């Protein structure tokens, strides 16, 4: 990954009080545009971090039954936006695959909510994310990424196909556009506030 901008941009002098940090999770299938969306609005180039998972499995080989341990690394891209009021908003792009859902618990704890980014050509990839946020009652919005600005499907059709409940906001977005990303985040924060206000 080569990013032109400095990844240590905009340091906050330590003389200042520590910023309050908040986070939003961007979920969706492989290559749906999560990192593009984050990069469209982030102050820093999207950074990549890794969570290392250790999987224990019991297998049988020539020497009989034994425990095997394999290590899997899951990459996660993220960005940061400084907002007035000494607030730092982090955007974390989550690995979309089913089998890594368990690591989301740690990531989404305390998050404002989530944007589920959808590619209508590969709808099935975002089923796990929709199920996950719905089951844990985490505020989320579904954003249909329109490549080349073309909406191929009606939002109602996508809602039905994904079985997204009526109370979950949906919208078209364009992950490459700062304006579209901003609108998507605004929709999510408004939704989270409504949920909080009951």
């Amino acid at each position: 990954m080569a990013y032109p901008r400095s990844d240590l941009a905009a340091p906050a002098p330590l003389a200042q009080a520590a910023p309050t940090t908040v986070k939003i999770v961007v979920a969706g299938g492989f290559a749906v545009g999560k990192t593009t969306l984050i990069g469209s609005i982030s102050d820093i180039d999207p950074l990549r971090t890794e969570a290392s998972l250790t999987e224990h499995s019991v297998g049988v080989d020539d020497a009989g039954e034994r425990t095997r341990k394999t290590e899997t690394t899951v990459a996660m891209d993220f960005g940061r936006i400084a907002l007035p009021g000494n607030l730092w908003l982090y955007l974390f792009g989550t690995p979309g695959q089913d089998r890594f859902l368990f690591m989301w618990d740690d990531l989404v704890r305390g998050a404002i909510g989530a944007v589920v980014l959808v590619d209508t050509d590969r709808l099935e990839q975002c089923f796990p994310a929709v199920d996950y946020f719905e089951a844990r009652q985490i505020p989320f919005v579904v954003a249909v990424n329109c490549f080349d600005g073309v909406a191929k499907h009606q939002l109602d059709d996508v809602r039905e196909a994904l079985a997204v409940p009526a109370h979950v906001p949906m919208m078209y977005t364009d992950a490459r556009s700062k304006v579209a990303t901003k609108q998507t985040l605004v929709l999510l924060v408004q939704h989270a506030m409504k949920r909080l206000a009951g």
Partner: protein
Amino acid sequence: MPGHDGEPDTGDPGEVVYESASIRPYAVTGGRTRTSGELIPIEALVSVLGKPSTALSTEKTRIVELATAQYLSVAELSAHMHLPVGVVRVLVGDLVEEGHARVHGAVASSYNPATTLSVLESVLDGISAL
């Protein structure tokens, strides 16, 4: 991966080579996957409390260097050091226990609906004004 932030890349036997994905990352934490305290949120900011007088490990020294001039989150430290989040959490936890660093609470750690609502209002205003 961005490799231009000047992290140490020693080739000495027994030293951690950050670029290598094949190393066992928890070797630098002595095999520990978490500290005794509360789990540090991935977005929690770390700051360093002065220059440590005692010698620290290569990785802890790097954290001190990175977080001296600016606040950096656990996630950013992890990215700059090319170490998994879990490893950085343990190292930061150690630095806090040893009195070298401080972790600044994210909103998550002091959950209160009224506080959260006012923070969300600020976030909404901030994003809208971008």
